[in-house]
């Protein structure tokens, strides 16, 4: 039995090795097939041999920042309320809201971003914006990561020992003072971890961007999020969609592995950093 269970555990390591090897192999083949200057060209147009990494990385950063602007106040507010204010009964009623939101598939939020957030929100504030834009995609991704930010930071706040709160009350502090000035700072490393984790999820989110951000053929670098543009994940998705049709320039298809490798490296880095933060709050209490 023991051997069987060990084999199951080792399988995960095999998967990691497979991911790294398959990404590396194909990414290297891509780099061998193209001229390196093509990575620093005018815009991301893989079928024309223009693989400008700046474009898609910048669009990813833009979408993730918008997502964080949406998710940080909503997620942290919800977490603080659930951890410090809600009575057990209210908590049981309110917490499932976040759990249901967490269960909504990203493809659904992509459609919602394209057909609701764009016309009802983005185009109302900025009339004349095109249907597909990075702003709506960013808001959609933000909604998607609210439950993640909320649940990780709520765990962090609940892990703050009760004695800290009681000491604060004992000194005559009010509820809001205790929550915001004592519990919140005490849980700060866990809260930071939740935000980094949310950022990492936002960077890797594909479907919302693939549906709502537009520019499926490729795009120039857009500074303004009110335009359509291709992100790293969006670029992979749209290459996948076209993969059974046009072959395009040399390396067109393999470029998706190169982008995948960059994406893998970015999210791995963020996850490792957030793990550090989580461990810090676990050790302290």
């Amino acid at each position, binding site marked *: 039995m023991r051997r069987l269970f060990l084999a199951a555990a080792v399988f995960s390591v095999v998967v990691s090795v497979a991911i790294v090897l398959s990404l590396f192999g194909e990414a290297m083949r891509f780099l061998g097939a193209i001229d390196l200057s093509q990575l620093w060209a005018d815009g991301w147009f893989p079928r024309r041999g223009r693989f400008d990494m700046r474009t898609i990385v910048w669009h990813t950063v833009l979408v993730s920042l918008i997502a964080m602007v949406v998710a940080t106040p909503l997620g942290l507010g919800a977490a603080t309320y659930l951890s410090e204010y809600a009575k057990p009964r209210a908590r049981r009623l309110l917490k499932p809201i976040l759990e249901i939101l967490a269960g909504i598939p990203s493809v659904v939020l992509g459609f919602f971003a394209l057909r609701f957030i764009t016309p009802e929100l983005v185009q109302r504030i900025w009339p004349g914006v095109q249907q597909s834009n990075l702003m709506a995609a960013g808001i959609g991704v933000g909604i998607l990561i609210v439950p993640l930010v909320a649940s990780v930071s709520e765990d962090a706040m609940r892990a703050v020992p009760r004695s800290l709160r009681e000491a604060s009350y004992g000194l005559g502090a009010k509820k809001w003072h205790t929550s915001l000035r004592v519990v919140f700072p005490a849980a700060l490393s866990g809260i930071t971890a939740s935000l980094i984790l949310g950022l990492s999820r936002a960077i890797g989110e594909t479907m919302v961007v693939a549906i709502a951000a537009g520019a499926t053929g490729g795009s120039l670098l857009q500074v303004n999020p009110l335009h359509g543009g291709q992100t790293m994940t969006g670029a992979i998705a749209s290459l996948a969609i076209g993969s059974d049709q046009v072959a395009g320039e040399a390396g067109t298809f393999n470029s998706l592995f190169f982008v995948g490798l960059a994406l893998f490296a970015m999210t791995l880095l963020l996850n490792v950093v957030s*793990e550090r933060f989580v461990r810090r709050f676990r050790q302290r209490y």
Partner: protein
Amino acid sequence: MTTRAATPTTTDLVERALRGKRIDVFGTFVSVALLLSLLVSLGILVTLLADMIAKGWSVFADRGLDFVTSPLSPDPAKAGLSQGIFGSVVLTVFVVIVAFPLGIGAAIYLEEYASDTKVTRFIVANIRNLAGVPSIVYGLLGLSIFVKLLSGVTNGRTLVSGGLTLAVLVLPIMVITASEALRAVPQALRQAAFGVGATRWEMIRHQLLPVAAPAMLTGSVLTIARAFGESAPLLLAGAILSNFFAPPAGTGLLTQITDADYTALPIVIFNWSRQPQKEFVAITAAAIVVLLVLLLTVNAATIILRDRFERK
């Protein structure tokens, strides 16, 4: 676990005595603002559901069950979900068969057998990191390993490739939830079993698993539900990305799984959502309603069951 500072009755009494009848304006403002951020999430959820039902309602009203039982078609008035639902169900079966035993096996090894060595810690860290890898990267893995490298076994772009890709994707999450379920079982139970002479396997089989089962099952169901709604990896692992395909005439169920084109419910939604015509907007919303009804029923049932277990 719910007995925390949520009801500091003494605090309330003292505060009231000190404050008298004055109202703490800023304190009220903070608590309302915090509650509001939770209610905004609720508002988004309700808006999303209402919007999908409003947009998709006409499809159900006009076509009824026909929408669910028809195959794909380039004509939005005829297109239906049967192939997507079939694909998603088969993919889910793959996930259950492959990821469920592997995930629970790995969790049992890490929690019950492994000693705290460097190798063990490496495996645990590895699983945690795998859980954070974006799902589209698993699609790249599925494409290069299952679709291409192992095409002799999987026949390339088939449900086998898609199913294995999704199974590998949920595996780390499965291990983590199962590990948490095992860790929640009190140590005393294990010691009691060893005390009466049980071997480790007997202890796991007769004491540990029965106690940990409810938490393990609910965790696994939620994870599998996530796989059901997942689409990014399938874009790469071979799902058909056009508006129409038909299995070769006269193929049996087995051939449809092991050697035929496939799609899945979320992939159908993705394809339709990219069509500009108005009719496609309606059927996309209707398909989303079907997907959400399936997912929310499973999720709600699981969450209610878990809460009942937790309260016990």
